[in-house]
């Protein structure tokens, strides 16, 4: 018995060691790039890439923020907020229609929505570019936001599953009290769906903040450049001035890491959700 216990403890200890080693491998690139971002150019040029920064300087951040990255941060934040609000709002409406009402064409439409989830973004890239070029809307805020503002089939699908599990009596009772569909959505459905809405918010914020392919072709001009596109351009502009480039990547990554630490339960749940459903 005792040897078995000891064996279990040893195994558990080894498991933790392996896990911690893996975790260190996971964060090492991020930590070392952040460390490079606060190095002086002099230290970077003269010492090994692996030495810790001394003195710590924020000068690299100041330089890249002045070089247009400040604006890119603001544009990215604005785009992310607009798209997230639009997607949640419009997906809630559509998911409710699919989950709780019956109308001719419901099944067909739902299958069309599901089918579009399979379309790779590379397929719509060129036609969208064409359409926005025709409208003269390239390099505007609308080019960034419009294609993603009107809900996403994925969000609609997840929300529909969730809405179907809400007890019908609750909705009937509200209707008896004279509530119309919008009242029911605002006062019954949305409050009951907070976990899935928080999860969807996290997923949407992450994917929009990080989106690259579409912004690259739709708004690569200086005015409406987002952070990811600016990061790719900084790489060219500051050829091998790694402290400046790492300051840029740190600015692109850090806000989401903060969001992550604040909302880690939602993030982990979102991963569990998307994997199981």
């Amino acid at each position: 018995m005792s040897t078995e216990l000891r064996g279990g403890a040893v195994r558990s200890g080894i498991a933790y060691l392996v896990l911690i080693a893996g975790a260190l491998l996971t964060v090492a690139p991020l930590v070392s790039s952040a460390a490079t971002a606060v190095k002086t150019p002099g230290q970077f040029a003269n010492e090994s890439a692996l030495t810790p920064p001394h003195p710590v300087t924020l000068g690299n951040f100041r330089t890249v923020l002045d070089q247009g990255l400040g604006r890119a941060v603001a544009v990215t934040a604005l785009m992310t907020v607009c798209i997230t609000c639009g997607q949640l709002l419009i997906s809630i409406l559509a998911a409710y229609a699919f989950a709780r009402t019956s109308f001719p064409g419901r099944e067909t439409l739902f299958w069309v929505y599901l089918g579009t989830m399979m379309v790779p973004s590379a397929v719509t890239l060129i036609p969208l570019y064409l359409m926005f070029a025709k409208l003269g809307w390239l390099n505007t805020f609308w080019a960034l936001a419009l294609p993603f503002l009107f809900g996403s089939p994925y969000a609609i699908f997840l929300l529909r599953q969730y809405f179907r599990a809400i007890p019908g009596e609750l909705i009937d009772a509200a209707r008896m009290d004279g509530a119309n569909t919008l009242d029911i959505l605002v006062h019954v459905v949305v409050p009951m769906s907070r976990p899935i809405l928080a999860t969807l918010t996290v997923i949407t914020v992450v994917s929009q903040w990080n989106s690259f392919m579409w912004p690259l072709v739709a708004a690569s001009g200086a005015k409406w450049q987002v952070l990811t596109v600016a990061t790719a351009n900084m790489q060219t502009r500051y050829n091998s001035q790694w402290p400046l480039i790492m300051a840029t990547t740190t600015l692109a990554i850090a806000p989401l890491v903060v969001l992550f630490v604040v909302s880690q339960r939602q993030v982990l749940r979102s991963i569990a959700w998307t994997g199981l459903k």
Partner: protein
Amino acid sequence: MDRTVRRIATSYALLLPSLIGVGCFLLLPIAVVLWLSLHSWNLLGPMKFTGLDNWRAVLGDRQFGHSLVVTVVLTAMVVPVQTALGFGVAALLAGRGRGGTVLRVVYALPWMCAPVAVGVVWQWIFAPTGGALSALLGRRIEWLSSPVLALPGVAAVLIWMNVGYVALFFVAGIRAIPGEVLDAGALDGATGWRRTRWLLLPLLRPTMFFVLATGVLTAFQTFDTVYALTRGGPDHHTDVVAMRLYSEAFDAARPGRAAVMAVVVFAVMFVITFAQHRYFRDRTSYEY
């Protein structure tokens, strides 16, 4: 009658905004891509109908064939490794309390990071001068400019990005297995490797399907990381399909040919999804 009409009108009113979105930004583009594939155009002048010329050109294009091969090789390097490592991490991680939560947060970190920023960070890690790997190994390695090492380098970055994410799916899958099933296995004496092989793996088949399917589909579409790391170089050795499509449309200014590539990508993904679905459906007949 009047109430029925009103009910249907309400439903469509709720759907209208999303119908605009799906119609204008998903269905219309699909139609445009097919139409574009039949035309010759240089992004500026007038469009000319050329029938199947683009199709013939792309399907006979050795460069495009090469990029398909590169993409398949990249996928074949990335997906098995990230799935195996992710499963290993999950098997160790499941059932651990407080410490496990902290570790899960750490492992999920790369999932949050912009692939472009990650690509740029790894470009620094791989850089022959001033890079972390050269400093660590004490010698210069021309990693990303080497025809042999560039693609494995890209694969390593993708694996690094995905292992923790894959592990979290498996952790969720393991947690969804009823405790009694695992306990019964323990009573039967299944421990360690045998427990993993004969109990955990078969029960995790749905998760396995999901992880492999999404893994293949995302690896096949890789763009951001390659753009930041190599832009398809050196000499097209990392020229994945999405990169090829992008340069064909916007660098070579031949959107008609790129449209054909887009249709091919879509077809390949459709076939992969369908095949995976069939394969796993036939082998997931039991419930737990």
